């Protein structure tokens, strides 16, 4: 990961965001012979996909796809990537941009061999953001066990002097360096792809669904981590309050999506995600009951077949009616949801050991905007000024369509090379 120091005039693409869309754009462009810089704010590449347990509808783990991309990056000298980095400014015009990139200190240098000694010695623990705070990790840590780059990171803000001392003493390779400071670099690029992705909508904001107040109410992304072999429970789906295996799970669809008080749009993937997660639970417990409360089941295109398949399972019960009230059972750790079963016209209460809120995708632009990029009111990025938006920063998408979109964005960025900076049409 050495920075290119020479500011050549050769075509160069900046990809903002190192998630699956950004990686795809980067690899596609680089394999067509263009130099690429990836800027990623996390200490690792892979973005949200890295947190997923399985893809729908094939239910295969996303690691293989990620690994293939990582290998293509490793093997391609045209790709440079910066983790823990943010684009601070963009100036210039298509074909001739100057970008300012801030590199935040990792406090771990290239000597790191990922030996884990610092983690073992580190006395401080912090909530594990990668697992949405469901477990604790040491302040010196590897983000997750297949993280790329395979390099540790220290959360210096939560590591006091004692902690720093312990970490440094434990490292035999002089890889920990607390003198690292934020560095700002500038780069000339000819085109830019924005692939800053999405964040799970903050379920704390949905005040009638109990998240943050009732222990056994989790989000769908938390369920991904719970079911994931490298998650906080090594893939065992147990509930947060008492670690009990779950025998009944309620999925609350449209939790904050299609709701003008929260996200006014349909997040596109949540129905498929819940249908998929129902399989996670059913695989672990053949008697588990799944209740899916929905307004409409939206499984676009061929995904409909997946819905039909799940519907065949008598233990997966679909109830038409949005959950609008969630309460704690008074005599157990179970959770009670309330909805109108619209097909019978009865207001019903259903109890389960775990409730999963199918929260939607908030575009990253809603909370963090990249300079010079145009955004819609909701925070979705708009391709303009020669900056091509890709993937979930632009609209809610699944992984497969993000990849297609990212390839399309790479094609558009490459066309700038052909025209040597001429204005090209884009959309």
């Amino acid at each position: 990961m050495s920075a290119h120091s020479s500011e050549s005039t050769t075509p160069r693409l900046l990809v903002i965001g190192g998630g699956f869309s950004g990686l795809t754009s980067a690899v596609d462009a680089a394999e067509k012979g263009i130099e690429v810089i990836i800027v990623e704010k996390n200490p690792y590449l892979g973005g949200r996909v890295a947190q997923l347990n399985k893809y729908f509808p094939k239910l295969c783990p996303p690691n293989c796809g990620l690994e293939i991309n990582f290998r293509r990056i490793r093997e391609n000298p045209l790709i440079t990537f910066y983790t823990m980095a943010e684009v601070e400014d963009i100036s210039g015009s298509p074909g001739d941009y100057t970008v300012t990139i801030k590199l935040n200190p990792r406090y771990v240098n290239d000597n790191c061999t990922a030996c884990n000694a610092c983690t073992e010695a580190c006395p401080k623990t912090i909530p594990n953001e990668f697992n949405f705070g469901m477990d604790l990790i040491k302040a010196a840590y590897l983000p997750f066990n297949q993280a790329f780059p395979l390099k540790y990171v220290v959360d210096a803000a939560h590591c006091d002097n004692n902690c720093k001392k312990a970490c440094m003493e434990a490292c035999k390779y002089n890889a920990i360096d607390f003198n690292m400071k934020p560095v700002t670099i500038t780069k000339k690029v000819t085109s830019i792809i924005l692939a800053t992705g999405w964040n799970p909508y903050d379920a704390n904001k949905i005040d009638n669904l109990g998240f943050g107040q009732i222990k056994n109410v989790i989000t769908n992304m938390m369920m991904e981590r719970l079911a994931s072999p490298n998650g906080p429970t090594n893939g065992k789906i147990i509930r947060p309050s008492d670690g009990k295996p779950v025998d009944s799970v309620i999925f609350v669809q449209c939790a904050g999506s299609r709701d003008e008080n929260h996200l006014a749009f349909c997040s596109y993937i949540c129905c498929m995600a819940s249908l998929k997660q129902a399989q996670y639970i059913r695989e672990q417990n053949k008697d588990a009951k799944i209740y899916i409360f929905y307004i409409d089941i939206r499984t676009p295109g061929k995904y409909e077949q997946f819905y039909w398949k799940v519907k065949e399972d008598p233990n997966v019960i679909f109830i038409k009616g949005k959950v609008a009230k969630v309460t704690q059972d008074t005599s157990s750790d179970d959770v009670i949801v309330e909805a109108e079963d619209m097909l019978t016209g009865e207001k019903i209460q259903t109890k389960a050991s775990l409730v999963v809120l199918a929260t939607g995708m908030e575009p990253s632009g809603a909370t963090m905007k990249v300079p010079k990029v145009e955004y819609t009111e909701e925070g979705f990025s708009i391709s303009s000024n020669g900056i091509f938006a890709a993937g979930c920063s632009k609209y809610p998408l699944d992984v497969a369509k993000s990849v297609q979109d990212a390839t399309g964005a790479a094609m558009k960025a490459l066309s700038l090379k052909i025209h040597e900076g001429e204005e090209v049409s884009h959309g």
Partner: protein
Amino acid sequence: MSEEIVKPDLNFVKEVISSGGESLKKCYQCSTCTVVCGMTPDNSPFPRKEMLYAQWGMRDKLISNPDIWLCHQCSDCTAYCPRGAKPGEVLGAIRKMAIKNYSKPSFLASMVNEPKSAILLFAIPIVIFLVFMMIQGHFTTGIPRGEGGIISFSKFMPPIPYIDFLFIPLAALVVLSFVASIKSYWADMAKNYGKPTDADINKSITDTIIEILSHKKFSKCNVTADRKIAHLLVFYSFIGLAITTSIAVFYLYLLKWESPYPQTNIIKIIGNISGIALLVGITMIVSNRIKNKDKAGIGSYFDWLFIVIVYGVGATGMFAQIFRLLDIAFIAYPMYFAHLVFIFALFAYAPFSKMAHMVYRTTALVFAKHVGRDKSI
């Protein structure tokens, strides 16, 4: 539900939309509203189904439906509605249409619903009271004063043969109108929603009255929880003012004692406490509406006309008294005149204005309890 053929009444849909339910078509039937509603029964809950009926123009399923009155417009549904469809406002519009449907004569019902008739609504009492003044020669010989030269409204507009000769027949007509309306409303409810029951109707009536007196239902509102106190104040001030009026009748017709009465007399004490409660309550209602307008909606012309009338009654009554005591005739008389105009508007239009909600909601609550639809709380 058995199979039935929907005959959409498109004019009904348009009327709901133009009566304050303009957000109706935004509803996408998710049923958040029925779940957050604290008033609805669990079986066949509202207001989700009402939104569908209204969208489809199913007039008959709404106008005579007691459920529209079980709704107290807490606006919890409106606040949580993901589409801004404002079920609370839509049901408010439907209630208004139900009043219009059942109240007689119906041309008066139309008048209280349209802003363009507002001038006429007030012009009627203004003309009546101007004629009364003219007959008495107030414009030529001046307004006679009471004993000791004080301002006396009973000299300005004597109960006999003016005030009481106007208001007593008027009250009788209002009662007749209400009786006729409620009879046909009850008949429709019984036809469409009645179930065989051995429940004692007297118990349903008693339970309803207790519920209204305690305002228990309002405690189930969350978003507009502050409405309880405001409505309670206005409600009890009306009772207080009714008591005041009864004492006045007693004084006048049995004791032959004409107003003004001393400030320390029981009639003045009850009247003034009620007057202040009315003004405080109605001010709270206005401020609550403004405060909650984003979550609950600001309300329709129909709502505001009633608020203006109630405010007018309270404010002019209080000011007329103050300026009478201060002996400032050029304000005291016009204030009292305005007071009479507002009182007229309050009573004469009661069967058609929002005032009628008192009668329709009470009737619907009794019916709903009687058929086991609404549980006593």
